[in-house]
């Protein structure tokens, strides 16, 4: 279990974290979302012991990251945002090194190397040097290093950046599988459908703190749906525009929390025979994120 309480961190004039509170339970995947500079990576760096906080604390399975860093690091699987691999050594040699550093030996190490390479679809690349791998394969190798010792807490910082769909699928399946085994997973991403696939709960980060924390469904509950309507007779578009609808290409669109009444009102104005098609697009995490990026949402 990962707990952050009142975490604070400043870099010169920039406040990276200001009262950052977050709890990730065993078996839970928490997706950290927020615009660039919101504090996601700073939090993960503090949680993994790479950066010292100015205030507050992070505990991993009850151990304080600052006071018992080595014990904590043995419990963490970390995949940093940037690739951190040795170009001249093979995937197997990477996995052996980091497995040994976490205390794996002999048969257990061999078993975990085999398991994680299968999970990450790296079996054929196992004895190839990193410099010879494609970007997606490197990304998978980076995540495999985080998973090799089956840590109870995983910190994954945008692990699918630049990954192709196959890489993404493998990675998400492996992360979901580790969460099912009981790992607490902290996962940052800008690809929000990934969080839906991971069945992750979501923490929205803004101005260095968690401003909303809930399941995706609940966070989306207050967001408007989008109504998209096509009309059979284009001359009635002007009537709809006067009622607050926007014409985008050949479609009328309206963002609304009450799609039923708004559609009924439109039908009342133009008549039911004029509707060619109606689509109600429910809010997505992307919508939530767009609002956040635009500085609209305080969501919580």
């Amino acid at each position: 279990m990962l707990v952050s309480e009142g975490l604070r961190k400043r870099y010169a004039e920039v406040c990276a974290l200001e009262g950052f509170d977050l709890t990730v339970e065993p078996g839970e995947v928490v997706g950290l979302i927020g615009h660039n500079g919101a504090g996601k990576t700073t939090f993960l760096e503090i949680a993994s012991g790479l950066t010292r906080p100015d205030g507050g604390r992070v505990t991993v399975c009850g151990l304080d990251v600052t006071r018992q860093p080595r014990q904590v690091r043995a419990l963490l699987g970390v995949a940093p945002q940037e690739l951190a691999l040795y170009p001249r050594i093979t995937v197997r040699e990477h996995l052996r090194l980091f497995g040994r550093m976490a205390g794996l030996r002999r048969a257990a190490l061999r078993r975990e190397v085999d398991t994680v390479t299968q999970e990450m679809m790296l079996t054929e690349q196992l004895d190839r040097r990193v410099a010879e791998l494609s970007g997606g394969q490197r990304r998978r190798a980076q995540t495999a290093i985080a998973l090799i010792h089956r840590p109870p807490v995983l910190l994954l910082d945008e692990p699918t950046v630049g990954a192709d769909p196959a890489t993404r699928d493998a990675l998400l399946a492996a992360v979901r599988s580790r969460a099912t085994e009981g790992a607490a997973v902290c996962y940052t991403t800008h690809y929000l459908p990934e969080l839906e696939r991971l069945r992750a709960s979501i923490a929205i980060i803004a101005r260095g703190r968690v401003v909303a924390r809930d399941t995706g469904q609940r966070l989306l509950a207050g967001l408007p749906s989008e109504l998209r309507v096509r009309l059979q007779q284009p001359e009635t578009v002007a009537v709809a525009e006067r009622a607050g609808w926007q014409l985008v290409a050949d479609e009328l669109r309206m963002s609304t929390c009450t799609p039923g009444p708004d559609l009924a009102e439109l039908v009342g104005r133009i008549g039911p025979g004029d509707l060619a098609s109606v689509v109600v697009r429910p809010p997505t995490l992307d919508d939530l994120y767009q609002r956040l990026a635009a500085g609209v949402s305080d969501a919580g």
Partner: protein
Amino acid sequence: MFTDQQASLRSVPGAAVSRQGRRVPGAARRLVALIRHDALLMRRDPGPIISRLCMPVVLMVVFEPLYRSTMRIGPGGSAAVEAAPRVLVMFSMFAISTVGAALLSERTWRTWSRLRATPARTWEMLLGKAVPLLGVLLVQQALVIGTGFAVFGLRVASGVVVLAVAGLAWALCILACGALAATFARTNNQLSSITDVSGLLLSSLGGAVVPTALMPGWLRVVTPLSPAHWGVQALQGALLGRTGDALVAAVVLVSVAAVLGSLACWRINRGWGHPELL
């Protein structure tokens, strides 16, 4: 959950148990893993190591007659006792850049931060990197002294143990210099500038290029400021049978290594390894 893993970690001798029933592997095991890893990195890029092993041997063969005439050594004597320590000290100064480059590469690959996210301590990571290089430096010394013995009749008057102590002390000092140099460089060019200038300056000043006896008086006063001076003293003392001088110089070198190594650790702990600071 995690039962296999816990069983595996529990089987690690000397490991400390965390509250989760997991064992943090002992420093010795981590160190062995790091040493194996750094030796592997070195094997994968052997060019600089090979040149640094071969060149001092070649240069000693060239320098021996030079020292013989400069130092006015008669036909019966061996100038290898002058040439070998100086060539060794001069060439091992180049190892400062090897150590620095090894550390700087970790930083540019961002693997230093990745290693810091493991249970390894800073000194373990530095030692893991230093031990294979220490091996190379000791092989370099053995090759030069061995060539001196086989070709020029060089004798180790204080015995092999004293020579080994002197060589080890000098190698440790070089490694610490390299580690510290790396913490001041942000690019390979910066590192080259630092190591080229400091290497040439310190080896010249320390009497590794021109014997101290041939230097002007005012320069001789400052030679002890260079670790190279103590390197030459330690190695030459062991070869000439001046055991006391050799051991005093070795103590000075180990002290310098301890200070520089601690400074390097301090700078690294202050966030040097963070790639954003490049």
